[in-house]
């Protein structure tokens, strides 16, 4: 997809811009995770073991596998080698017990700094040790004496990681990159390099891999996730099945059978169907309300209020609510904003992307599979994004969706913990735990966002009003919005690094990619969020009161967003674009403090 590639370069540009220390050479570097033609031959292995006998044996064995071997008997030395030649090795094999450094510690470092697959080895095969290895991120644990056949297969770990990262990259695009970059900015050069490498590698892999994987990118391979990630493709299958069956006669079992996704369960489909129904009803409402909406498919939508409320609510919620609630509710609107914001660029925090939203308009269209939607979105975008452009900030996104798990989680982890988060991050979003935990919103992240977040001024009444108005949206929005909210949350939860902020402003391109990525995330998050509760809370916060003038606009955008939602993949992408920050801000302005106001007014208000 055009959009996808564009953001990457922009992202790269961002990275470079903000990480002047980083040399482009890294990216240009041919050994940047690009597999050799005769892969796995030539696999660059670094072996670390204090036992000289084993070191020699392994060297010989690996050479027999036609790998490129570097041996090292000290862990510190190994780390130096790895740092000196970033992207100079494909995989690391290390012994667990070493005199100068614990093997697990080395494992952690490598995972965080270089994000290389690490294989642990030991003569001790005790389950607890093996478990520890896996916990620390080892991709395999070999027992000495090691057999040739075991070494012949180590390339699979490299390959798997590449695919995994490519997939993740596809999903999250710059989102991930930005995320990494952000972390990188906090960390040392190593971290920066790490981030960049990851982006570049991911991109390369992505290009190599081609299109989006049919299955969920993140799951189900993720060990931590228990929920299904409704990727674009998956949702499209779902929608296709639903349409085939006939919306009236649809049922989880029928859908499941038609979809023919082996690992999907009836429960997964059932909950998704519920959300989808809510989404449709919301859209219909908005459709009914809005005569000018283009392309919206009419359905039996209930009142249109929901849409606007949702929007409002989300805004309000965002301001106030640290929880995901607001995000969930606002989904379309909020998410749009979030998505649009730089977060896509790689910054999970949608906040940044505000400015990009305007630009994203075109991006969205690219991503949107549904041309109809695209057009309608475009309409919305053009109209409403103008204000956005002026303002780089999307106050909306400040929501600190707790549900944004993947994104929020990761950044939080990373920020808090030294490098551990990298490991998690690297694990790709799939690994990101989708818990319902609430992450504290870190206002720092984006300035614009921060301002909004910092002063949640949602009034109680508004909240109450919102809740009453839109129960329907909550569920669905949660899901679809989650991606956006995730972004928002992610943004919030992570203190914005200067680098990351910058990223947001940079290119709009990545946003689309991020959107897609976010979307996925969103879906994931959705599952984790205790949806209904959150949404209801959001509703309450939304407060119907302010939305009057904006309703129409909101609906419009809401619809737009909704349409995207339908396309899952597109939704996220589209959402941000369609999201008219102006609308949101308008609604929310009265809710927010003066600080927020300024932010909101500038970019968000729609006339």
């Amino acid at each position, binding site marked *: 997809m055009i959009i996808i590639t564009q953001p990457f370069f922009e992202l790269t540009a961002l990275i470079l811009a903000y990480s002047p220390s980083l040399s482009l050479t890294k990216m240009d570097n041919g050994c940047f995770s690009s597999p050799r033609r005769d892969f796995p031959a030539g696999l660059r292995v670094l072996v670390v073991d204090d*036992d000289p*006998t*084993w070191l020699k*044996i392994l060297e*010989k*064995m690996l050479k027999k596998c036609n790998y490129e071997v570097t041996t090292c008997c000290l862990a510190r030395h190994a780390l130096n080698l790895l740092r000196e030649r970033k992207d100079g090795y494909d995989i690391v094999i290390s012994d667990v*017990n070493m005199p100068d450094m614990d093997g697990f510690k080395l494992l952690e470092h490598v995972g965080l700094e270089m994000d290389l697959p690490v294989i642990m080895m030991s*003569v001790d095969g005790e389950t607890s040790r093996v478990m520890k290895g896996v916990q620390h991120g080892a991709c395999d644990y070999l027992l000495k*004496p090691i*057999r040739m056949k075991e070494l012949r297969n180590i390339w699979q770990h490299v390959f798997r990681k590449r695919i995994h990262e490519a997939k993740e990259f596809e999903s999250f695009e710059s989102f991930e990159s930005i995320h990494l970059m952000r972390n990188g900015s906090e960390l040392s050069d190593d971290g920066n390099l790490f981030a960049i490498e990851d982006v570049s590698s991911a991109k390369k892999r992505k290009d190599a891999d081609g299109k989006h994987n049919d299955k969920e990118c993140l799951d189900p391979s993720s060990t931590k996730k228990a929920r299904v990630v409704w990727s674009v493709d998956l949702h499209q299958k779902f929608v296709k099945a639903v349409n085939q069956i006939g919306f009236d006669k649809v049922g989880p079992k029928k859908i499941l059978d038609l979809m023919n996704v082996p690992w999907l369960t009836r429960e997964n489909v059932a909950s998704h169907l519920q959300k989808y129904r809510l989404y449709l009803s919301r859209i219909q409402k908005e459709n009914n309300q809005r005569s000018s909406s283009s392309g919206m498919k009419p359905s039996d939508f209930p009142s249109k209020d929901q849409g606007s409320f949702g929007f409002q609510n989300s805004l309000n919620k965002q301001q106030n609510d640290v929880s995901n609630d607001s995000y969930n509710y606002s989904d379309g609107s909020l998410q749009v904003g979030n998505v649009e914001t730089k977060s896509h660029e790689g910054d999970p925090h949608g906040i940044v992307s505000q400015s990009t939203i305007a630009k994203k308009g075109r991006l969205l269209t690219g991503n949107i599979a549904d041309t109809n939607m695209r057009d309608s979105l475009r309409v919305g975008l053009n109209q409403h994004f103008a204000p956005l452009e002026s303002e780089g900030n999307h106050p909306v996104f400040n929501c600190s969706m707790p549900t944004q798990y993947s994104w929020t989680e990761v950044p939080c982890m990373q920020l808090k913990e030294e490098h551990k988060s990298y490991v998690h991050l690297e694990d790709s979003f799939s690994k990101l735990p989708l818990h319902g935990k609430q992450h504290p919103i870190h206002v720092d992240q984006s300035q614009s966002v921060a301002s909004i977040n910092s002063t949640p001024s949602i009034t109680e009444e508004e909240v109450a009003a919102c809740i009453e108005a839109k129960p329907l949206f909550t569920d669905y929005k949660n899901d679809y919005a989650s991606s956006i909210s995730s972004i928002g949350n992610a943004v919030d939860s992570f203190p914005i690094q200067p680098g990351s902020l910058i990223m947001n402003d940079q290119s709009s391109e990545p946003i689309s990619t991020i959107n897609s990525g976010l979307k996925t995330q969103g879906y994931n998050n959705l599952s984790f969020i205790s949806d209904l509760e959150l949404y209801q809370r959001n509703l309450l916060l939304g407060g119907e009161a302010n939305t009057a003038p904006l309703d129409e606009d909101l609906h419009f955008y809401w619809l737009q967003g909704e349409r995207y939602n339908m396309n899952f993949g597109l939704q996220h992408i589209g959402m941000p674009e369609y999201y008219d920050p102006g609308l949101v801000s308008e609604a929310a302005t009265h809710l927010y403090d003066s600080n927020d106001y300024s932010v909101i007014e500038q970019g968000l208000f729609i006339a």
Partner: protein
Amino acid sequence: MDKNQSRRQVASMKQSLFDQGLLDEQFIQLEGLQDDANPNFVEEIVTLHYRDSSRLISSIEQALKERNPMDFNKLDTLMHQFKGSSSSIGAKKVKAECNLFREYCRAGNAEGCVRSFQQLKKEYVALRKKLEAYFQLARQVGPQETACRSK
């Protein structure tokens, strides 16, 4: 000595090492790694092992002398390294003794450690002698004789 005879002798020497449970599959693996680039690979590895392991043996002996109290953690760590090294050449019986020693370490049984180590040293020395004799003969016979399987 007749070359064929020597070859047969080498072969039977090796076989007896396996039959007596002194060597395991790892030794065969090492032989499999031997090729034109490293025609004496197995011997090199064995030599390397004995150089490294003798250092460990001394350390363990030293540590065993500390009786009050006996540093079991240190002993366990040293023995872990020793076991790893022994596994590199496929020293089966020696490895078994290592396990026993570590059991005593974990149990905090000083006497058990000392006794076990004595036994271990016996096995260690015995295997070393046999391997030295084996390689000596093998070298006389010729490099191709030491490999029991094609590369």
